């Protein structure tokens, strides 16, 4: 097999693994969270739906949903990092466990699609520290920021 088709095959395998990684979480499916990738960069997407509203008067997205979305983004990013760095196990890597998270709510979540990206600040042997930002209209106007510590599976 040529080097070129080998790379193409690996790309396809990565794409499929990303799909499986997110699809294995029923709660992510329930919220409608999807993951897009450009190169190695992942963007999480949370479509707007009536089911994620917290305050129907504004209306605004439920703060708990925003927090959950940020947490999911971090978990899938960490799983994805395992895949691109050569996950050798069966199927997709198990998701890391959340140790603690801290969410700052900067703007109210409007009734439209929300995006998020996670950045690993430090990947230790057991614990990984991650920052995640969520935005709607413009990336430099985040609606919420999260930092969290996650326990990597053995």
């Amino acid at each position, binding site marked *: 097999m040529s080097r070129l088709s080998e790379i193409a095959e690996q790309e396809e395998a990565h794409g499929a693994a990303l799909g499986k990684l997110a699809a294995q979480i*029923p*709660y992510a499916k329930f919220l409608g969270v999807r993951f897009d990738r450009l190169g190695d960069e992942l963007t999480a997407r949370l479509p707007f739906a009536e089911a994620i509203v917290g305050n129907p008067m504004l209306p605004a997205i*439920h703060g708990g949903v925003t927090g*959950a979305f940020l947490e*999911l983004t971090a978990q899938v990013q960490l799983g994805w990092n395992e895949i691109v760095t050569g996950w050798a196990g069966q199927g997709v890597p198990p998701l890391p466990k959340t140790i*603690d998270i801290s*969410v700052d709510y900067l703007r109210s979540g409007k009734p439209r699609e929300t995006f998020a990206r996670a950045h690993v600040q430090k990947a230790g042997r057991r614990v990984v520290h991650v920052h995640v930002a969520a935005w709607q209209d413009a990336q430099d106007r985040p609606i919420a920021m999260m930092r969290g510590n996650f326990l990597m599976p053995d």
Partner: protein
Amino acid sequence: MTESADARELGEVFSLTGAFDSEGTVLSGLPHSREIGMRVHYSGDSQAVLSVDWNEKLIGDPQSGVMHGGVITALLDTACGAAVMAVPEKLDTIATLDLRIAYMRPATKGLRVYCRAECYRLTRSIAFTRAVAFHDDPADPVASASGTFIVERREAKA
């Protein structure tokens, strides 16, 4: 006391002054809370007790079948907000400013998760809350949280 927390015991542990509603009422005013079946069991004197039952669509880890941390996050956020709304003063609107959560252990598959929150300090514009999530024993928590809220008072508008 296998499936649900014991009402009398909880009332004592948290020194609730009013009645604890073991059945609970659905939070119909909050679409997401209603969607995940969140219930209010107690609300009063700066405290609130809410719960979410285990449900297949709320699973976070397909291997173990435990609820996703995000559901607990939504429960803690809503309970802290409910505790703020349960202060004696009349408040207009509140919004979460920050929420910090520590996950002590995974929630057990198939069990309802309760959350008790209290607003322990209220200033002119900020409410400080803390909460604990558990199955039947608050001393053996699933998660704990502390959150602050921006508060808008009715009289401030006059």
